């Protein structure tokens, strides 16, 4: 029995969290995903961008909700500097009805999102990136036609209270890229909601 479990565990490791996903320095795959405005969006559409702040996000997760205003502010600050924010909802709408496409449109209108809010409808993009939760940030730097991963992790160090933030991990990472430097740290972690898949 113990042996069976060990095998199971090894199976999880080989197919699960740690075998897949990007590391800093990897080239990120482009995608073509439905936006809340009804159009399909690819990273290649951001022709003039210096990079993209890709955030796996959703409607229902309290940690995402706590960060929505900060996401809007980040986009408004950094899109003019060449780093627009793009939110991608990786959740299955049957597993989590509050994250359906219709609800995404509602939320985007309620909050007047200035950024694109895309649906990873086939749930193929988030595993490729290695996203495990919402919110989960991938800061991508444009290199020619490609986007290279420059920072993975959290938006900042205090989900509860924006005014109590001590380290603005994401903003600092974008500032570093804008200054021609490497983000430090390149990885951070934050509590988030698991990505919802159908059982």
């Amino acid at each position: 029995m113990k042996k069976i479990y060990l095998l199971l565990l090894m199976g999880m490791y080989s197919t699960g969290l740690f075998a897949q996903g990007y590391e800093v320095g990897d080239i990120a795959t482009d995608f073509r995903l439905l936006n809340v405005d009804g159009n399909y969006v690819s990273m290649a559409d951001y022709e003039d961008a210096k990079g993209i702040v890709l955030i796996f996000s959703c409607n229902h997760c309290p940690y995402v909700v706590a960060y929505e205003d900060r996401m809007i502010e980040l986009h408004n600050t950094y899109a003019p500097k060449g780093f627009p924010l793009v939110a991608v909802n990786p959740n299955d709408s049957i597993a989590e009805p509050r994250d359906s496409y219709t609800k995404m449109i509602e939320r985007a209108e309620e909050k007047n999102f200035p950024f694109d809010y895309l649906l990873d409808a086939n749930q193929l993009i988030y595993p490729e990136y290695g996203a495990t939760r919402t919110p989960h940030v991938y800061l991508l730097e444009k290199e020619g036609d490609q986007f290279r991963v420059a920072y993975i992790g959290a938006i900042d160090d205090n989900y509860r209270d924006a005014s109590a933030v001590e380290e603005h991990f994401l903003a600092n990472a974008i500032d570093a890229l804008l200054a021609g430097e490497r983000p430090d740290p390149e990885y951070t972690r934050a509590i988030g909601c698991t990505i919802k898949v159908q059982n």
Partner: protein
Amino acid sequence: MKYIGTITMLAFFAVLNLSKAHGLPASAEAKEVEVMDFDTFLPRLEMDNDSVYVINFWATWCAPCVRELPAFEQLNETYSDQKVKVILVSLDNPDLIDDRVIPFMERMGLQSEVILLDDPNSNRWIPLVSEEWSGAIPATVIYSAGHRSFHEREFEFEELEEIVLPLIQ
């Protein structure tokens, strides 16, 4: 057996003489929640004795966490006379303890120890719980003398039992 478990828990709380406890027990079923920051919580990840510690990170709003809570409760109850210690670490907003967390615990009839981790700088403490942890919940640490494992997944009772049973001394 459940009755004995309850008494043990009550005795445990009495002995601890909690200084930061919130909420008033309205009945024998009602539980208190101890609120603490990570540094205060850390020793519970490093207890050096002959017990098996099963530490589950959850939140009232996390659907898979809520789904698996009965498995941890069953573990706590089934092995209440063994050296198995189940600790449920809530990551709920501490402002919602009285309005949400305690009513939820009463509704679920939770008997395991519940701690509310009040420490928003999760980037600092997630790797201290486990380097393997991405930050998604549910997540569970199981340890005893000579064993330590981390699981970022949802559990059934039998799956928990299979890990814990061989560790019981």
